[in-house]
């Protein structure tokens, strides 16, 4: 909330009314601080009690362009905010009614995604016929209510609350990391008095250790309990709580322990003051020095919307952006804190491994010339390309085109397994969409642990379970899900029982209105994938999961590149081609088993981090990371989004697709595009959905057999865990010190 905005909002209506009733000077006097009116607010409001003439202000618009959704048109009620009639659905609070009327009510404890606490009293407004000001966030709006937000009573009330809040709040804004984006700072400027009357000693509170991510300065806490409510309601952990009473009230962890949620970083954003701030960001920068770049996250397949805050060439922090369809306003800790990995272990220059086994820095010219020469010495079918889990669609398209031109069709993407089925889009994306999960009433999780694979999807499931008591059945190894669930079994055995209708959960599925099956992409690596998928299909058929109006068959992907790779048809011709390859092109692929690559193969590694595959590479081509390039990514629900460059590339690195394009020319098979625009029009011919950015293209409906019948046998091996360590899943997060600290401290069993 901009300070200027707040101040002018506070000033404008007041000034115009006062101009009518009083001398102009009075109207201008009140900026900050007590005015004579506020010293005796009751008298002033009595003087004003005569009915307001029809207001002369221009009609106001809801705040931030919010739209009001009337679930039931008969339930609309009318209230008056500062004399304006507004129509709102029944059940809204006074504060929400004011928002619809375009009046921003100051608040600390109220947060529209959390339950209502009503304990800060900052949102006091005057309601006609009510003897005292009321806390608007907790008061339901009633028909005909006359709400007044800028009367002397309301202003005095706010001023008083502000004085109380500041009584025990340290005056350490100059050394506080929240300074400049602090609700308390902003609101005390807009609504507070210019002095306080408190002269005693301020209280102080011992800081708590919440782990490597959240820094606490508990003396600054104003006891709004947003963090407690976030932890219990959204993150689903009972880690934080309120201890003590009165002035001894403290936020803490009851016993000395760390905050163990994978969403814990979000308390930094919701804390209205500087009590909870980011530990890695502490004292690094002031928020007004930072350049914000709106982009997306690539550390998992959710594609959370983020803003990268950078100063000069450095990424200093990552914070979430609102996107109701994907991540609402939260992001996982991995997304938020992986950024220091962007500075470590980066590949700066092209390198060639010399005869002595050491890397030598060479020019791009020499590096490309060498690769271009070698690739012509091997037979086309011995050329294999692997795209890594962070690859964008543009580079994957270029890689595929390049290798096809070299005569090879062995191009694959990490994580998609040996036998990816790229023919039916509904077979590899989340068909309900992430928001669609909220409509489901029964979930069946097959071989997936959403809490570590896609924390934001898990948060959605948790939200649904909390709101509607949806049932969750889970098949897979023992795991920690932060909502009620039934552990049905650990492996394909249970799946067969479900498919044959022998399992008690079958009736739950059958009785469900909107059942959703979520299949983990970890299963893609299994040899018996076809058989497992056909068992799931039988379950889907029996449970009526896929219908024209509801497609509850979902695949939860693991990596940012997976969906686009399948859309672009990165499917290897022969599944084990890598074992007989003579030339392997790893485009950011760090999770291929390097032991599979024959010893005499020539390995080109193109990527941004000196991660696992570098040890096997013969040539290194440095590429830019997601924070440095413009790239298209498709998330697990099929929503296409783009990253934007926030910082310059390091060293002599180049964008992935440019490298492939340049190499193609050196190798004599020049690709026909020279610009991002060119490559996007090429993508359009292959997968048109990948060019409609920020849109989610649902898969075409197909109720009939999703895949050819298989005579494969289901192997009795239990389902595995796809992600062992939530904090370290790719080259960037593995290079991050913060993530390493998290895995050391938080994953300790």
């Amino acid at each position: 909330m901009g300070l200027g905005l707040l101040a002018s909002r506070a000033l404008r209506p007041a000034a115009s009314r006062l101009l009518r009733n009083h001398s102009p000077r009075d109207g201008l006097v009140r900026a900050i601080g007590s005015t004579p009116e506020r010293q005796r607010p009751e008298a002033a409001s009595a003087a004003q009690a005569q009915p307001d003439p029809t207001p002369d202000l221009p009609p106001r618009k809801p705040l931030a362009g919010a739209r009001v959704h009337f679930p039931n048109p008969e339930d609309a009620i009318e209230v008056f905010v500062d004399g304006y009639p507004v129509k709102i659905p029944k059940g809204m609070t006074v504060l929400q009614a004011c928002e619809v009327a375009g009046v921003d009510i100051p608040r600390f404890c109220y947060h529209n995604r959390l339950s209502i606490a009503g304990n800060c009293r900052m949102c006091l407004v005057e309601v006609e016929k009510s003897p005292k000001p009321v806390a608007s966030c907790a008061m339901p709006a009633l028909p005909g209510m006359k709400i007044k937000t800028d009367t002397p009573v309301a202003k005095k009330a706010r001023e008083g609350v502000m004085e109380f809040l500041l009584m025990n709040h340290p005056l350490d804004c100059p050394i506080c990391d929240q300074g400049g984006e602090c609700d308390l700072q902003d609101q005390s400027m807009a609504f507070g008095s210019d002095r306080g009357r408190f002269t005693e000693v301020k209280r102080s509170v011992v800081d708590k250790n919440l782990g490597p991510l959240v820094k606490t300065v508990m003396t600054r806490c104003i006891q709004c309990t947003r963090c407690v409510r976030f932890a219990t309601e959204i993150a689903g952990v009972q880690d934080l709580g309120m201890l003590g009473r009165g002035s001894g009230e403290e936020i803490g962890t009851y016993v000395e322990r760390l905050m163990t949620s994978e969403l814990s970083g979000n308390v930094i954003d919701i804390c209205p003051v500087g009590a909870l701030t980011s530990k890695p960001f502490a004292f690094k920068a002031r928020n007004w020095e930072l350049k914000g770049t709106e982009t997306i996250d690539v550390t998992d397949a959710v594609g959370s919307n983020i803003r990268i805050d950078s100063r000069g060439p450095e990424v200093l922090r990552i914070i979430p952006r609102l996107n109701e369809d994907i991540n609402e306003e939260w992001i996982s800790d991995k997304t938020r804190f992986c950024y220091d990995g962007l500075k470590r272990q980066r590949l700066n220059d092209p390198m060639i491994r010399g005869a002595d086994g050491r890397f030598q820095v060479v020019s791009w010219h020499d590096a490309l010339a060498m690769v271009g020469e070698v690739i012509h010495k091997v037979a086309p079918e011995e050329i294999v390309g692997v795209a890594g889990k962070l690859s964008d669609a543009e580079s994957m398209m270029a890689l595929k085109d390049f290798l096809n031109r070299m005569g090879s069709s062995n191009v694959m993407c990490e994580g998609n397994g040996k036998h990816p089925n790229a023919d039916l889009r509904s077979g590899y994306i989340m068909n309900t969409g992430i928001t669609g999960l909220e409509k489901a009433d029964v979930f069946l999780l097959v071989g997936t642990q959403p809490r570590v694979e896609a924390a934001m999807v898990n948060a959605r499931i948790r939200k649904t379970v909390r709101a509607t008591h949806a049932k969750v059945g889970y098949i897979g190894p023992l795991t920690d899900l932060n909502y009620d669930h039934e552990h049905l079994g650990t492996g394909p055995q249970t799946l067969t029982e479900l498919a044959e209708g022998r399992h008690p959960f079958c009736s739950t599925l059958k009785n469900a209105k909107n059942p959703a099956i979520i299949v983990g992409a970890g299963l893609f690596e299994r040899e018996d994938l076809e058989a497992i998928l056909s068992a799931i299909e039988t379950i889907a058929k029996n449970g009526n999961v896929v219908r024209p109006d509801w497609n509850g068959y979902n695949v939860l992907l693991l990596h940012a590149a997976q969906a686009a790779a399948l859309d672009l048809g990165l499917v290897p011709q022969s599944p084990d081609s890598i074992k007989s390859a003579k030339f392997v092109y790893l485009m950011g692929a760090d999770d291929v088993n390097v032991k599979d690559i024959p010893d005499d193969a020539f390995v080109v590694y193109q990527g941004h981090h000196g991660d696992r595959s570098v040890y096997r590479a013969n040539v290194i081509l440095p590429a830019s990371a997601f924070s440095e390039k413009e790239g298209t990514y498709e998330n697990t629900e099929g929503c296409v989004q783009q990253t934007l460059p926030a910082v310059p590339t390091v060293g002599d690195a180049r964008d992935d697709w440019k490298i492939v394009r340049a190499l193609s020319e050196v190798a004599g098979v020049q690709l026909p595009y020279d610009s991002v625009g060119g490559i996007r029009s090429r993508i359009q011919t292959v997968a048109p959905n990948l060019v409609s950015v920020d849109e989610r293209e649902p898969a075409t409906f197909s109720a009939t057999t999703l895949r050819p019948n298989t005579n494969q046998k289901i192997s009795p091996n239990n389902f595995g865990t796809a992600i062992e360590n939530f904090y370290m899943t790719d080259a960037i997060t593995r290079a991050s010190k913060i993530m390493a600290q998290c895995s050391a401290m938080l994953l300790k069993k």
Partner: protein
Amino acid sequence: MDDNKYVTRRRGNGCSISSGRPADPSPPSWTSTTSTTSSTSPTSVPPSPPRSARTNSHVTNPKVIDMLLFKGMEELNNITEHAKQRHHIIGQYVVGNQGLVQDSGTKEKGMSDFLKKFYKSNYF
């Protein structure tokens, strides 16, 4: 005295002023106070200061040399006294150096425009 050492390095090649002492290979102390080491390595910094010195190697007027020397000292002081912020230092001495791009000379014949630009920089 300590400052002098860096002046030598700063104006190292192509400049007549030299204290005759070899450059100290350990990272300058300010790299630890500004923790620039997280974005760069000590070895990648040294080429930048001499390069900026070399841009003035044609200057012969002693007055101008004096002035350049003064400016150099000032810059150095700003760095060692932390009057310069970390991101200024990084911006000036770590990124934006074109030193790693090699001139490919006559080999460029027959190359597409794209490839020529590609060899020069990532941004085109």
